[in-house]
């Protein structure tokens, strides 16, 4: 036994000696680049590119790629060198474990900053790796509040978080909808429970009463039991924190059980699939989405057109946000005059950028300041906008074409 341990440790040491000469290359990889030639900004982008959310992941990557192409076409000079952006797109399958592996890949590849990840579930564990390696991370779509709450200096996002959305929803229910008694259901996932908790707080603060708090899971289809229980409490509004595969049958079953309350949902239920699958029962239900509708974004209409021309597909969800996430990093590079991660990190908190989605500035945690939330009502088989809360830039900037912004690189001019 002892011989073996000895051998193992010996060989380990040997191997170390033999191989480690390659190691020191790691920390100073970007330094030896000569002072001439293009200034390369290497960005990592991670989203699920396979699996059930592949289409949304691809959409996010397209958005980022569009920004990269625009910057490269703009021929931006920094200290006499042309800025060239490279995008390294990776697939994390929306799997937390895979997310950490991708994060490691980015660190290995010495990217200067990371755009993503798409899902909160992957963003959270990956952010640990980025924080440990001082790698700036800008997520375009992770909405979990936890992401920016852990005090990492590397974590930023250009998307409204669930906390802000839940708060707006709660105030909407108690205020605009004038609901007195509210029942809350969540699907016991990070997203669903998170948004439901914020909803409750905000609704109660506005004087509404939470008459029932029920839970289901993200695979259930039968909600008859909890709805029956809720029916007995006679709520004015039922809030559901969860996704449309549950929301649609829930809406159907509410009607079947003769529940007259309105169903209110976050962005998880704010989809075309909900309308399709809930059929006639969808009519009159409410939902919310972070941000403003793409058409009303400052650079929205131009972006929609450009995206369509380039990829011959409609925007799914997050493409404009991913575009802005890249641009925010590029702006930081321009201000810093360097693509060094540390330099980008120092500049990101000072961001003042008029983006496609809105005016972007970060608060001390790395969340977007004055985040907007838009509320919708299902009417005639369509989600129609009811009101937009927050995001004062939305209306003001709508008048300004995106190109007019002085800080924005020329590319938006097509």
């Amino acid at each position, binding site marked *: 036994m002892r011989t073996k341990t000895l051998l193992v440790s010996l060989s380990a040491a040997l191997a170390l000696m033999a191989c480690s000469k390659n190691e020191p290359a790691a920390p100073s990889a970007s330094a030896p680049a000569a002072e001439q030639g293009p200034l390369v900004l290497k960005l990592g982008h991670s989203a699920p590119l396979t699996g059930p959310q592949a289409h949304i992941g691809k959409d996010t990557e397209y958005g980022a790629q569009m920004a990269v192409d625009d910057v490269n076409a703009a021929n931006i000079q920094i200290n006499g060198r042309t800025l060239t952006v490279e995008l390294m797109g990776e697939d994390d399958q929306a799997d937390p474990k895979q997310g950490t592996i991708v994060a490691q890949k980015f660190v290995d590849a010495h990217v200067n900053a990371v755009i993503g990840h798409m899902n909160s579930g992957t963003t959270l*564990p990956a952010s640990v790796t980025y924080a440990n390696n001082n790698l700036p991370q800008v997520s375009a779509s992770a909405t979990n509040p936890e992401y920016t709450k852990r005090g990492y200096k590397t974590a930023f996002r250009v998307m409204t978080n669930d906390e802000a959305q839940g708060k707006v929803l709660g105030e909407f229910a108690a205020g605009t909808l004038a609901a007195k008694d509210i029942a809350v259901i969540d699907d016991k996932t990070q997203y669903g*429970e998170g948004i439901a908790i914020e909803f409750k707080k905000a609704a109660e603060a506005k004087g509404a009463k939470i008459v029932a708090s029920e839970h289901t899971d993200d695979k259930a289809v039968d909600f008859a039991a909890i709805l029956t229980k809720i029916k007995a409490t006679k709520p004015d509004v039922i809030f559901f924190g969860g996704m449309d595969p549950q929301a649609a049958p829930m809406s159907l079953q509410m009607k079947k059980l003769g529940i007259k309350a309105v169903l209110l949902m976050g962005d998880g239920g704010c989809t075309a699939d909900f309308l399709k699958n809930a059929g006639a029962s969808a009519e009159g239900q409410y939902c919310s989405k972070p941000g403003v509708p793409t058409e009303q974004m400052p650079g929205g209409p131009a972006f929609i057109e450009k995206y369509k021309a380039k990829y011959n597909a409609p925007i799914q969800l997050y493409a404009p946000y991913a575009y802005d996430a890249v641009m925010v990093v590029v702006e930081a590079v321009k201000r810093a005059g360097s693509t060094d991660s540390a330099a980008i990190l120092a500049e990101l908190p000072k961001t003042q950028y008029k983006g496609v989605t809105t005016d972007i500035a970060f608060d001390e945690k790395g969340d977007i300041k004055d985040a907007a939330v838009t509320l919708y009502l299902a009417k005639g088989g369509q989600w129609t906008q009811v009101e937009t809360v927050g995001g004062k830039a939305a209306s003001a900037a709508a008048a300004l074409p995106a190109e007019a912004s002085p800080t924005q690189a020329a590319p938006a001019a097509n």
Partner: protein
Amino acid sequence: MQAKHKQIAGIALIGVALAILPFLIGMSFGNAWIRMLDFALLYIMLALGLNIVVGFAGLLDLGYIAFYAVGAYIYALLASPHFGLHWPLWAILPIGAVVAGIFGALLGAPTLRLRGDYLAIVTLGFGEIIRIFLNNLNAPVNITNGPKGIAGIDPLAKSIDIFGYQLHSLYLIYYLFVALALLIVVVTLRLENSRLGRAWVAIREDEIAAKACGINTRNVKLLAFALGASFGGVAGGLFSGFQQFVSPESFGLFESIMVLCMVVLGGMGNIPGVILGAVVLTVLPELFRHWAGPAQMALFGQTYIDPESLRLMLFGIALILVMRFRPMGLLPSSRRKAEFEHAAEEAGAKA
């Protein structure tokens, strides 16, 4: 004497190979693959633990991942800002092993009289119960932080400088995992040929006969559950510190099924087989993920089938084919193989 030398040389060779493996992989493919390797080692530990219950004692356990979860959460609770505790790894791992072992016995106790499929469904239920508790115990008192999971867990190791060279933490973690995996291999090897190991085989083959031979079937079964569970607990603790983030969604039924597939596919009851099963099922999908999309692009110019679903599809087909042509697994244990061939001959003779 000669044989002994050969044995030592063999062990030394394996030792050297294991020691340089991460460098070879790290140099040629990057650190992400070392991460992959670390995960493979974790699954080896898990599969070896489950092998005690399923392979040795013949008790079908569909909720094994629960013990992994218990170990992971114990590490997460004792070494993270969640409760503000930061205990050292060496204090937590034994606690994780013991607590998971107790949970194993807890699961074992009510199932002693159950057989086969009844046992399967109860273990499955047990696994779900643990997962749901982890998901729910954030209110009224916040213990597990619920679906949000616990983040910011203390890392297992930090990168260190040796002689001026930086050794990445992944390498250190690799050595830690190899050491513990080897420990578990040695323990299971010793168990297999011990009195207890033979008692498990006796129970697996014929419980009544085993009882008649004076084996205390109750204690022996409980020991199988507890020991298997404690290995899972250790692996869970390591997972937690490695990933630095745990949430209940990592411990679903599909994970239990995956580990079971590793054990059965590799060769139930045979330690090298189980190790092979774990490595094959962790590494192959990964390789596949890398090549499936690009290969389709190269061959047809576009991606016809989403690589993820192609991967799952091939996984399913592989399960069917391996069981069809090697029902004892890729590397069956010699004892089981002999039994099976004997039984098959008998069946053949009858027909």
